[in-house]
């Protein structure tokens, strides 16, 4: 493969056609994504509700929704829970398990590998409306499969460990993406690099540290970016715990659902949605910062590789 990186305009698209190619997608995005998103952000500045007097006559309240949320202990605890949830289930859980699976399955072929990949992917693509039932059956206090297996009758996983439960649930639900991504990424690690480390006597952790992680760092960052973003907006745990008990699993999307739909405070809900966006933005910028350091180095690399050694 001669040039993995794209030269400018290999197919001779030209600017005009390039625009024509991008335009349909951008139009759809503009109409059905950007426009409603901006409208939602505007709603966040009002006291708009779905019903009641505020529905007939919403008023601009400035940043009241924001200060309201930021001073609401429930929001803050929800934010903290979300951080734990994202950190535990996405960053550690999905990415960690996904990597572990990708790494251990890397050299395997045959039925075991296909079975593991099959169930992991199945967990990912089953409809979210259905998976709630599956997990009830697993975690139920009285007749749950898990208690039956562990001989711990009556252990109420969802009540005693609500956050842990939804973290494990989300790991189950979302590991497939990380596994797939890392599997593909690991194929880009030159085997000769790993073998050089092995010949030097490096054990597996040392191989990971010295060879694998540096080589797939960009994949790791992209993966973290996407799964953090998705987990931050993941509403599915609601079907398991309904945010409870006592809000101990009320992550931000559930909080928004409660505020916007149950309590009908759409203005406040919109404001919180925007806050989530800002938090995601901060997260993305942090990841990108890590990435950029890498990128610049890579660009350097390309120039050097193409232009021969600098004197």
């Amino acid at each position, binding site marked *: 493969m001669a040039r993995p990186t794209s030269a400018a305009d290999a197919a001779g698209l030209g600017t005009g056609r*390039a625009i024509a190619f991008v335009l349909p997608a951008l139009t759809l995005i503009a109409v059905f994504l950007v426009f409603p998103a901006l409208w939602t952000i505007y*709603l966040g500045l009002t006291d708009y509700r779905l019903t009641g007097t505020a529905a007939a006559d919403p008023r601009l309240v400035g940043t009241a929704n924001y200060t309201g949320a930021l001073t609401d202990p429930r929001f803050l605890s929800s934010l903290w829970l979300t951080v734990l949830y994202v950190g535990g289930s996405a960053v550690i859980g999905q990415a960690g398990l996904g990597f572990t699976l990708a790494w251990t399955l890397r050299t395997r072929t045959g039925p075991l590998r296909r079975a593991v990949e099959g169930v992991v992917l199945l967990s990912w693509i089953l409809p979210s409306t259905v998976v709630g039932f599956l997990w009830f059956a697993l975690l139920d206090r009285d007749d749950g499969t898990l208690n039956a297996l562990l001989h711990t009758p009556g252990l109420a996983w969802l009540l005693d460990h609500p956050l842990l439960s939804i973290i494990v649930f989300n790991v189950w639900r979302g590991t497939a993406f990380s596994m797939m*991504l890392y599997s593909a990424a690991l194929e880009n690690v030159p085997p000769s690099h790993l073998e050089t480390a092995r010949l030097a006597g490096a054990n597996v952790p040392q191989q990971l540290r010295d060879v694998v992680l540096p080589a797939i760092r960009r994949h790791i960052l992209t993966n973290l970016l996407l799964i953090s973003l998705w987990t931050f907006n993941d509403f599915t745990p609601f079907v398991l715990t309904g945010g409870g008990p006592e809000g101990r699993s009320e992550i931000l999307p559930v909080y928004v659902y409660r505020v916007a739909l149950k309590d009908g405070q759409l203005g406040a809900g919109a404001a919180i949605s925007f806050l989530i966006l800002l938090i995601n933005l901060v997260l993305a910028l942090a990841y990108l910062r890590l990435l950029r350091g890498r990128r610049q180095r890579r660009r350097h690399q390309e120039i050097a590789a193409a232009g021969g050694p600098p004197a």
Partner: protein
Amino acid sequence: MIRHTLGRLATTVVIAAVLALFALPMLWLASAPFDDTPAITTSIPDFTLRNFAAILDNPYALGSIRNSLIQGGGAAALVVVLAALAAYALSRVRVPGRDALLYLLLLLSSVVTGTAAMVPIFELATRLGLIDTHLGVILVVSGGLLPAAIFILKDFMDDTPTSYEESARVFGATPLQILRHIVIPLVRPGLATIAVWALASVWGGFLFQFILLRDPEKAPGSVILYTLYTEGGAPKLDLISTFSLLYSLPVVAMYLFVSKRYGFRFHGGIKT
């Protein structure tokens, strides 16, 4: 040698444990639909097919799966086509700020998929005359999926060597011919993966489908699943378990098809 074998044995055990963890929750889906008295827990079923007869009696059940296919398939097709075109152009032509734009759209998509965007989306759909149409659902959900799809597909495109396209170009192929003859076949595994991903994302979606549709003849499975409760909110498990199974099958079938045909994976990884 022994060490090696032991190590391999240990990883096999670990893998088997993971396999069990992932498979365990699915037991319910395998047992409850065939149980005479399905409960919310898993048990060895008193085997019956009565539940299937019951769900087939529901006037909307089968139709809703067809609707899911229309909406999910439509959205998947739309997302794949538009995202492929856009990703291709973005991958091959340098547009300043394209990465920042993609990230921004990715972030905005999180606002719009949330509950709070309900009112704007609904009003928009009303004004555009999209209420109670499959098209409305398709367009709305596609809008939310497109940024991530473009983001992922662009990386696929970045990883395909440009010499194929250049070669075709020297032979006189037009950009559209290049796209049709060369690029699409080359990234087909990526397109298939994105299609399954899009389908699976749309498949379980409830809120937008529900507020945008009026006629239950058009409602997708996710909405119909929600109707299988009593007035007091208790689930009718015989119907729900059976329907869940039927309703999961198309996605699973599509996954199996794609994975057999193209290999369900992210070739090269995503690393933008």
